[in-house]
Structures are given as structure tokens and as C-alpha cells.
């Protein structure tokens, strides 16, 4: 693959990863948010595939396939199950009233992106290359995921926020050093999957105990 094509594909896939994160912030329908998350998984897998192609590394190609299966297939499916029972009930399937309204959160996302750019400067300066120059995008996705986690009120949105963070971290990992070792990588993926399953079960229990998954209801425990 020629160098310019590599850079262009790398930037396009990285840009798509960030765009999906931004759109998650923009849209309210939980089903759409899950679809966007799945799309981000595809973009992330494509990003890793581009890196694998460039470096001619079969191991990376396998990891790309793994990422695609996990993040574009399995995790969205679990999220849909967490949402699934909500559709039948009377519960709204939208993020009705986020803590920070959508316009303000979009502006916040803009600021977070700039922040990500600022904090990533040492990372880019250490070894400037097309891949490390895309690292701020991964950082921005992490920050946007954290923002979703903090400002959204529905259980499923929290799950997506957590997973956005994880996608961003994965992107940073692959863009900097092509992964942090197979064993750790698999362990991390397993942990994320298990944590998501645990949270999905808890979502079900929350629905049993509270009748819905609005996190505003969680105010039994306080001082």
C-alpha cells in the first residue's frame, strides 16, 4: 500500500471513530445510540486492519477481526438485550432529559477534543508518525465517553459511555504500539465483556426493583 493511501485511510477510519462518538452525544434514541456504537466498532476494526496491512502483520489482522466481532457484534448485541425488555414496557426508549442539554454537550465535546489534543502533545512529539498523530482522536473518544457516562441518565447510555471509553483506549493502544501484548489484550477484552454482562444483569434487576432504568431513581443511598 502506498504511503499516502495508508495515511488517508488511517485518518479516515480514525475520523469515523471520533464522528461516531460525537453522534452518540447528538442523538437521543437509545436504539440509534447502540447502532452508532456498533458503527464505531466497525470503524475501529477497520483502523486496526489498516495498521495491520501497513505493517504486514498477520497478528494484527487477527486482532482486527477479533475487535470487529467483539465491538461490532457481541457488545452491541448485549446492549440491545439490555434495552430489549424496555421496548415492551412503557419506559421511554430515548434519553429524555440529559443532565447537560444536547447543544451544550456538543460544545463540551468540542472543548474535550481540544483538551485531548492538548494533553496528547507529548505522545505525538515522542514519535511523530501518521499513526501517533491520530492518537488525540482516541483520547477525545475516551473523554467523550467519560462525558456521556457523567451526563446521561439512562442505564443503557451509561453502558455506551463506558464502552466508548474502552474503544478510545483500544484505539490509543493500537495507534501507539500496535497493542499491549496478546495475553493482556485478551484479558482486557474478556474483562470488558464480563463487566458489560454484569451491568446488563444489573439493568434487569434495576428494572425489577424500580420499574425502569432511569438512573435518577438511584437515590436510596446518601448521607
Amino acid at each position, binding site marked *: 500500500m502506498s504511503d*499516502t493511501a495508508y*495515511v*488517508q485511510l488511517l*485518518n*479516515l477510519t*480514525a*475520523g469515523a471513530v*471520533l*464522528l461516531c462518538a*460525537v453522534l452518540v452525544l*447528538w442523538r437521543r434514541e437509545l436504539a440509534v445510540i447502540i447502532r452508532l456504537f456498533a458503527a464505531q466498532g466497525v470503524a475501529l476494526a477497520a483502523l486496526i486492519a489498516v495498521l495491520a496491512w501497513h505493517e504486514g502483520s498477520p497478528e494484527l489482522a487477527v486482532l482486527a477481526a477479533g475487535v470487529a466481532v467483539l465491538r461490532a457484534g457481541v457488545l452491541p448485541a448485549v446492549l440491545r438485550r439490555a434495552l430489549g425488555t424496555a421496548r415492551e414496557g412503557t419506559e421511554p426508549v430515548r434519553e429524555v432529559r440529559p443532565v447537560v*442539554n*444536547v*447543544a*451544550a454537550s*456538543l*460544545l463540551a*465535546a*468540542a472543548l474535550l*477534543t*481540544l483538551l485531548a*489534543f492538548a494533553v496528547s502533545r507529548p505522545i*505525538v512529539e515522542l514519535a511523530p508518525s*501518521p499513526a501517533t*498523530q*491520530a492518537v*488525540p*482522536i482516541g483520547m477525545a473518544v475516551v473523554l467523550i465517553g467519560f462525558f456521556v457516562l457523567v451526563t446521561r441518565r439512562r442505564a443503557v447510555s451509561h453502558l455506551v459511555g463506558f464502552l466508548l471509553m474502552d474503544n478510545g483506549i483500544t484505539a490509543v493502544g493500537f495507534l501507539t504500539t500496535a497493542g499491549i501484548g496478546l495475553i493482556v489484550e485478551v484479558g482486557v477484552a474478556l474483562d470488558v465483556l464480563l463487566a458489560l454482562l454484569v451491568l446488563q444483569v444489573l439493568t434487569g434487576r434495576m428494572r425489577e426493583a424500580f420499574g425502569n432504568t432511569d438512573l435518577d431513581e438511584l437515590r436510596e443511598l446518601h448521607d
Partner: protein
Amino acid sequence: MTDSTTLGLVGGLLQAVVIVAGAPLLVGLMRQVRARMEGRVGAGIRQPWRDLRKQFRKEPITPRGTSEVFRAAPVAMVAITLVVAAIAPFVTAASPLPGVADLFVVVALLATGTVAIALAGIDTGTAFGGMGASRETTILALVEPTALVAIFALSVRAGSTNLSAIVDSTLAEPSAVLSPAALLAAAALVLVIVAETGRLPVDNPATHLELTMVHEAMVLEYAGPDLALIELGSAMRSAVYLGLLANLFVPWGIATEAGVLALLVGVVAFVVKVGVLGAALAAAEVFLAKVRLFRVPELLAGSFLLALLAVTASYVLA
């Protein structure tokens, strides 16, 4: 007289003529596309010209109690838009006033046109005029930063905010169009244009319900030649915005050297590009509903974010 200046003068004159003559046709085309997609026959693409002709023949009439602002605004808007139509790269990459063909200047000029109409709306002293003006300025205030930032993202690559330089750099390096920065900036600019030209989902150009009007509410009091000028000016603004969008991202076909053939190709390419964009915009409108005014800031915040991401991407990514 150098070659470039000749091209700039001839081309500038040519594109001003093309835009003045073509803008109402563009509006007609967009209405016709909508009508066909909604299952109506439509009035034909020349209908706006017929309307204009009728309006121009009428006796000028102004409401009692309005000042000179009300009378000057339509002329000012058309004049300002005409300047932009002459200097920006539409048919040729050269410009009659190269120093003025700057992105910031062009955006500021177009905004001045909007402000003129908004002032006229306030000047009438009616409830709807004031309401429309207040809404329009709100949207303008939200759109302007987005436009500037998106344009800035484009200028990073060219190293200059001169429109001709940006067009030339895209011509020299076609693959840059597919970079994340350019794509994000394009998406942001589309939203800006939708808001600035008063199309769905921000404003409904075909509405007859005063309470939902934005642009139309400001010009409710106009009649006769003044109304015709306003309509012409609005149509020219649409053409100018779409032309800018087209040439910033898909500049191919634009005349880079003086010559009858090159200029002819430039005109045809410009007309086709703007026509296709306008038709696409109109087709998209069929599927959209107007968003509530309270949701408009959300849309525009989104486009601002896209523009800012475009700037960031153009700096960060190689």
C-alpha cells in the same frame, strides 16, 4: 494587463451575470424538484422569474412609519450579494479583486446582507417583523462561528484564507478532498448553508404560518419592487452559498486560464454543480420536518462541533 487580471475581470463579470440570471432559476428548480417528489406538477422552473417580473412592474409602496432603513435594506442586500458573486471563485479561479476574495471577507459580507434585512424587519415595528429579526439574528449568531471555523479548517491546508488559493490547492491535490478535515468541514458547511438560506429543517421557505416563520416573517411588509429585490437577493444568496460549497470541495471544471472555451466550460460546470446540489438539497427536504426553534441551537452546536473537529483534524492528522 496580466492574464490573471483579465481572467478575473471577465470571469467576475460573467459569474455575476450567471448568478443574477440563474439564481431565480435555481429556486425554481428546487421548488420543481420538491413538487415532483411530492406528487405535484409544479409551476416550472421559470416561475420565480415570472413572479419577479410581475413584482418589478408594480408601484413601489412602503408601510407608514418606516424609515430609510426599510427602503435601503433590499438594495443593500442585493448589492452586497452581487459583490460576492463577482469576486468569489465560481466560474474562474482568478478574481477581479484578489485581496477581497478572502473567506472571512465573503462570510462577513453575506452576514451583513442578513443583518440589513433583519434591521428592516425591526424597522417595520410590527410583531412579526421583530420576531423574525430576533430569530434570524439568533440563528446568525450561532451560524457565524461555525462558518468561520469550518472555513478556517479548509484554509489550513492551503495556508491561506484566500478563496482562489484554496481552490487552487484542491485542484493541485485532489486526494485531499477525502481527508477527515475536508469531509467534516463539508458536513458543517452544509448545515451552515441550510441555516443561512432558510431551508428545512431550520426554516420552512414555503410556510404560510406566521408563527413558524423566520426569514419570511421579516419581509412580510414588503411589496412590489422591494419584495422582488428581496426575493432576488435571497435566491442569489442560495446560489452563492451552494456555489461556494461546490467549488471549495469539488472545484473541477473551474476556468484557470483566460479563453472562451475555458470560460464556457467554467460556466457549464458551475451551473451543473449548483443545480445538482440544489436539487439534492430540495430532495432531502422532502424527507425532513422543521425542527422546533428550541432544537435549532442543538443542530447548530453540532455543526460547530463538526467544524471544530475539522480544524483539529487538519492540524493533528498528517
